[in-house]
């Protein structure tokens, strides 16, 4: 068996160690980093991507891949906005999340039951869904005559117990979904399927249904993120969410998940998101040129993937 997520060794905790070192180094370089304002900043900035990365973790642990999350988030945000303007906030939020889950279901059915490659399938839905978003919105932002309902807009910046609503959502989701993944038979089936589809099948796991379900989670969570995004942007934005899939995948891999499947942990994926966001925040606070920022972010992703590779190489040679 490969290194399990629970093993408390230094390599297994590398994401957390990297995050702590990154924060410590930034705090040493600028005293503004640890200010309450900036720490709140980082939490809010991470919130939407954290929700997407959790969905991506389901798919990647199950041995798959999803490029369509950015387009799905845009679809959900716009659907939520349009329904909300007609039928109220609750209906809008529900419609947005359902739209995301529907895209996930479509991905899952094509990949699991028609055996189409996940990369190609979700590349297709990424483009197709973006097209649908432009069709239903006419390419213009969704905010009605006088904006989205004010309670919904207030939700995008409001707080509960001093913490933004946008931060509570991933916090609660992380607790609930970690339980699903680690403490239920269903969760174990996802790991088993991703770790070895044939072996899982032979031991009685309905692998096709498990795989399809991971895409529904991913789409549904992208839907949640899309609704959060609409609250944050005070409008449904057809062009929102471009390249989010790449950030989410990078965060999940930074969090130690294996693109081979069967490995990965939700909270570590969230740490991966924090690494990406803190890195961007630090580079901004230190006034690093935006062109250099791209170079730095790319280098960090490659370094993390290389470290992951060395680690799994060691684990498999033991």
């Amino acid at each position, binding site marked *: 068996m490969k290194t399990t997520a629970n093993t408390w060794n230094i390599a297994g905790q590398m994401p957390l160690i*990297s995050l702590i070192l990154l924060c*410590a180094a930034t705090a040493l370089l600028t005293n503004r980093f640890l200010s309450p304002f900036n720490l709140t900043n980082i939490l809010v900035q991470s919130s939407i991507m954290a929700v997407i990365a959790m969905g991506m973790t389901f798919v990647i642990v199950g041995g798959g891949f999803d490029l369509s999350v950015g387009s799905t988030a845009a679809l959900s945000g716009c659907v939520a906005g349009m329904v909300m303007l007609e039928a109220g906030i609750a209906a809008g939020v529900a419609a947005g999340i359902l739209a995301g889950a529907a895209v996930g279901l479509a991905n899952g059915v094509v990949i699991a039951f028609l055996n189409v490659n996940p990369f190609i399938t979700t590349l297709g839905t990424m483009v197709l869904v973006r097209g649908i978003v432009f069709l239903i919105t006419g390419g213009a932002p969704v905010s009605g005559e006088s904006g989205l309902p004010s309670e919904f807009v207030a939700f995008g910046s409001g707080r509960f117990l001093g913490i933004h609503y946008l931060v509570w959502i991933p916090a609660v989701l992380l607790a609930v979904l970690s339980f699903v993944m680690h403490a239920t038979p269903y969760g174990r089936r996802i790991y088993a399927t991703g770790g070895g589809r044939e072996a899982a099948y032979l031991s009685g796991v309905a692998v096709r249904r498990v795989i399809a379900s991971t895409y529904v989670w991913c789409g549904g969570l992208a839907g949640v993120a899309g609704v959060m995004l609409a609250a944050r942007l005070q409008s449904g934005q057809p062009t929102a969410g471009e390249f989010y899939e790449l950030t989410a995948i990078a965060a999940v891999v930074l969090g130690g998940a294996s693109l081979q499947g069967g490995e990965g942990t939700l909270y570590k994926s969230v740490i991966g998101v924090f690494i990406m966001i803190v890195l961007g925040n630090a580079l901004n606070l230190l006034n690093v040129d935006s062109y250099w920022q791209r170079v730095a972010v790319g280098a960090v992703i490659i370094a993390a993937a290389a470290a992951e590779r060395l680690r799994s190489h060691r684990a498999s040679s033991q």
Partner: protein
Amino acid sequence: MFKARMAALTAALIVPAALAVAAPATAQQKVTIGVSLAQDDNPFYIAMLRGIRGRAQELGWDVATVSANEDKLKQINGVQDLIARGVKGILISPIDAVGVNAAYDAAAAAKIPIVSVARGSASPNQTIHVAMDEKQIGRDIAEWTARRLGGKGKVALLMGPSGAPTFRNLGDGYSEVMAKYPGIEIAFRADGPLTRERGVKQAEDVLVAHPDLAAIYTANDDVALGAMQAVNAANRKGKTLVTGMNGVPPALRAVKEENLAMTVELNPVEWGRLGVDVLAAFLKGDKVEPQVFIKHVIIDGANVDAKLPKT
């Protein structure tokens, strides 16, 4: 085992080390202003940033930039990072009139003035908007064209992307003036992307439909340069006037070579400088109008020599 652990640690150390190398020395006593432009890889914004940096340097200010690259959430996050940094004022070119309102709200909450340059925002927290007088530019282009045509002929309008208010205003100003000339007929009007490829295609089609076309209005120099290729290919050089907008160097050269009839200079370097000046006046406590217009200059054969880049 040891080797793998070292590899893990090395990777963990790369990030802070890269930061330490990249971080410039910060001078605390200087005034720092923050800049968040819609894109950092577009020549217009690159030139604007040059103007901002140049003017800030003259005032002894530091400039902190964050990039957005047309991602609204990234722009909001970047502005928050600037506020966390403690900047005294922010110059922003918002991606969208509504989508980045949270950035304006954050600046207002921190009592930092936020000045929009070029694109504007609908946010009530926008301190000042420095912009071009879009309708007036449209009117000026139309007046110039009508005079050159002697008040008669068919014209085609290749406008900008649908939904973008800038291009709608330009087109409205243009149409408003043309409506006063009974001899001028708007024979064609279409929205589209601001690319050379689209300029060629659409101008080709229009010239087939209206071989006697007297002028083509375009919302942007790239579209104009494309339309110009189609006009030349149809042997209509000098007979179908093509007008541009923006005054980029290739368009200036085309005006010099009489392939393009005219363009409008919107010197983005000057926009950046004006943005800094407006912010400086506001910070000093001077009264500044909520809307500041930047001046534009029509460039045609008569004055193009003075505007061409020195070689």
